[in-house]
């Protein structure tokens, strides 16, 4: 099913490598975030999360805390 567009959160990150991605995967798992993808082919390594409850700031805080850059993609 297509997600509700207002539930899609988008971020510009520097989650570049496979190692970075597996680290973030653990973080996501720990916080029960299931619907997430990273476009590692893109310069902005866009992190895309579908969640009706998460807030932009929460994700930014979570990713930054783990040592990566993360800002809202506009």
């Amino acid at each position: 099913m297509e997600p509700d567009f207002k539930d899609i959160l988008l971020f510009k990150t520097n989650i570049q490598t496979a190692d970075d991605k597996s680290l973030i995967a653990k973080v996501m798992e720990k916080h029960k975030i299931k619907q997430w993808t990273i476009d590692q082919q893109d310069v902005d390594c866009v992190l895309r999360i579908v969640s009706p409850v998460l807030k932009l700031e929460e994700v930014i805080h979570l990713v930054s805390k783990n040592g990566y850059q993360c800002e809202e993609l506009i």
Partner: protein
Amino acid sequence: MNIHLYLSWKLESRMRARDLNKVELVRQKAMELLVRIGFEGFTMNKLAKECEISVATLYIYYKDKDDLILQIAKEEAQRMSNAMLEDFDPEVSFEVGLKQQWKNRAKCMLENKITAQFLEQLRTSTYQEEVYGTIVSNFKITLGKFMHNAIKKGEINEMQLEVYWSVAFAPLYNLVRFHFDGSSIGGRPFVLTDKVLWDTFELVLKALKK
């Protein structure tokens, strides 16, 4: 939440509602860009620039570059294969059926140049299997049935599907390719006219019919 924040949030969510015109624009521009610069050079940033929208808007619709290419390819392959089956009945005589196929295919490709070139490009890419594996099965079944009917009725000899396809359709595809290029072998100028099309069809018919 203060009222200004709330209003801007409301406005943003309204703007994010799927806009069909925008989706169509993205699809068309994506194909044009992919045909022009290839799968490797294609990026979401370049596409966003072409469409004069933000990269974020693209990521609302698609997860990543592969998702975008696959979704568009599947939709277009389905649309084209439906159009190619229009008014086509696998039970009619071989000559009538093949003629309808030529008519449909020529029309489809000539009226959808970018899509035709995009799908052709896809055939030699790593995306090919996922797109053609599932989506065009009805198409393959109908056309397979048509060929087997013609064999059963004794209109054409028994042959492998690949052999049949190469004789029945490859000449048409090649003429369309020359036409799109505007030139044929050795740079000779070329335009596909109705006469050229149907003269070639007669030759193909002669080759296949018993």
